[in-house]
């Protein structure tokens, strides 16, 4: 701790520093849009010799993740980063990395999905692969990006699941703020070496990820092998186990560096709050400003921030929301034809609970649409009025939407 240095840097640079401190051995990236400067920074360090790693330039995001998959299979610590359509392009391998139980860590600078083209922020990209079996952690600021990425290697390598560390495009990825760099020795002590589950030995070869039939059966050597469903159940249990691991790793990181980030969820003025505002990422920080403003007006408003979106901390969220009057969930993503994904998950966590708050959703910030704390405070005032009017089911409130046909 004594050798920690503070520098002003973007979220992408903070992510690159985290990968360097984690002593990643293989970085693979497609360098064109929608890539962000995180891998550019890493490539400079590899070129200068500051980071003794292989930097593999590839022809697509699909191949970038494939390189990480193969490198992780032979026991290398790997990193890549992407955004938006780049993540969509690697989707097949996103599933492969998870099912093969490879502890790859990937930074996601959250950006809007095309069409139409946008390079600006929302969270639709990572939300669209939430079911693939990766841990997904969302960050509020650049310090949290660095700290969470270092933690992500511990989480990934102890559970054999890959981790996406998600941070809002431009709002964090390209915005500079002070970040404390932990001492490399502190990170080394926190992060033991990675030992893969896979065996890669030319003198004792293995089939890795071969065709796996529906039912368990003995393999050709007579060893009982799991069927597809057994592997999936074990994978699901690993993700559920991450609920404990994420909390513990955050606490241990706190003991080593003096900083913790709330584990699964974080809160702001929640103790006596009657109205709870919920979001993931930097939007949560904006909600704290809105909540403080509303507190000044005499409203009992608090904030519950989602740090771990997968696994979803349903029990912790339920306990945090028990006895409140209203939960207002702000999503920067949408399940088209339904509602915001975090809103759905909060509803399902509260399902059939007596004493659970009414849940309203709000959609905001799609494709980089600005969301100010004043907008969030206004949305909260509207929601509180609707709640007071006894409305239980309400369509999501689209914040700052300016459709001509609505005006007519």
């Amino acid at each position, binding site marked *: 701790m004594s050798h920690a240095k503070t520098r002003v840097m973007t979220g992408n640079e903070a992510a690159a520093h985290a990968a360097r401190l984690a002593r990643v051995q293989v970085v693979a990236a497609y360098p064109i849009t929608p890539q962000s400067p995180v891998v550019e920074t890493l490539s400079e360090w590899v070129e200068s010799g500051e980071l003794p790693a292989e930097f593999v330039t590839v022809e697509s995001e699909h191949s970038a993740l494939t390189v990480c998959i193969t490198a992780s299979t032979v026991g290398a610590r790997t990193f890549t980063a992407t955004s938006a359509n780049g993540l969509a392009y690697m989707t097949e391998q996103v599933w492969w990395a998870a099912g093969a139980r490879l502890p790859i860590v990937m930074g996601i600078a959250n950006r809007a999905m095309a069409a139409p083209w946008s390079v600006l922020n929302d969270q639709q990209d990572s939300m669209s692969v939430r079911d693939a079996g990766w841990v997904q952690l969302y960050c509020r600021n650049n310090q949290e990006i660095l700290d969470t990425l270092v933690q992500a290697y511990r989480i990934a390598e102890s559970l*054999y699941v890959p981790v996406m560390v998600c941070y809002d495009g431009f709002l964090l990825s390209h915005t500079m703020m002070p970040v404390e760099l932990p001492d490399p020795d502190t990170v080394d002590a926190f992060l033991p070496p990675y030992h893969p*589950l896979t065996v890669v030995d030319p003198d004792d070869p293995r*089939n*890795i990820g*071969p065709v796996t039939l529906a039912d368990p059966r003995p*393999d*050709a050597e007579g060893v009982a092998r799991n069927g597809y469903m057994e592997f999936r159940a*074990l994978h699901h249990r690993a993700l559920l186990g991450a609920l404990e691991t994420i909390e513990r790793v955050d606490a241990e990181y706190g003991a080593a560096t003096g900083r913790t980030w709330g584990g699964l969820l974080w809160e702001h003025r929640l103790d006596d709050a009657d109205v709870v505002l919920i979001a993931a990422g930097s939007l949560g920080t904006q909600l704290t400003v809105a909540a403080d403003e509303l507190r000044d007006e005499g409203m009992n408003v608090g904030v519950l921030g989602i740090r771990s979106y997968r696994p979803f901390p349903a029990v912790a969220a339920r306990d945090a929301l028990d006895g409140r009057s209203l939960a207002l969930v702000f999503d920067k993503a949408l399940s088209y034809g339904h509602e915001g994904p975090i809103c759905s998950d909060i509803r399902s966590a509260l399902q059939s609970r007596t004493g659970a708050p009414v849940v309203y959703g709000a959609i905001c910030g799609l494709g980089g649409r600005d969301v100010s704390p004043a907008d969030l405070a206004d949305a909260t005032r509207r929601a509180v009025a609707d709640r007071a009017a006894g409305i239980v089911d309400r369509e999501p409130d689209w914040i700052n939407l300016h459709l001509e046909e609505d005006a007519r």
Partner: protein
Amino acid sequence: MRDRSHDISMSRPAAGEAGRTGDWRNARPVMVAERCLAVRQGTVTCQICWVYCPDACIAQGVGPVIDLEHCKGCGICAEMCPASAIQMRPESVHGVCAVEEGER
């Protein structure tokens, strides 16, 4: 700590890893020994069928031996054989899948 070796799908390579795949076959490779270059030269030569079999179902030899327990009948060996020594014949001829069964 829990044994994690069964958390991932991994095994030692061995014949029959995917089960008895020979019963997927609808055409069987039949070696016409007098045409096979290895047989004609009386030595382990050519072996192109062994090289190309995608399922490692052919053992090198004079001539090469096809493992019909696991051969899926893809016909690549017959296509690649420079001496046309391997012919693909319908399984129904061999009675593995009776013609009547297929027509039912």
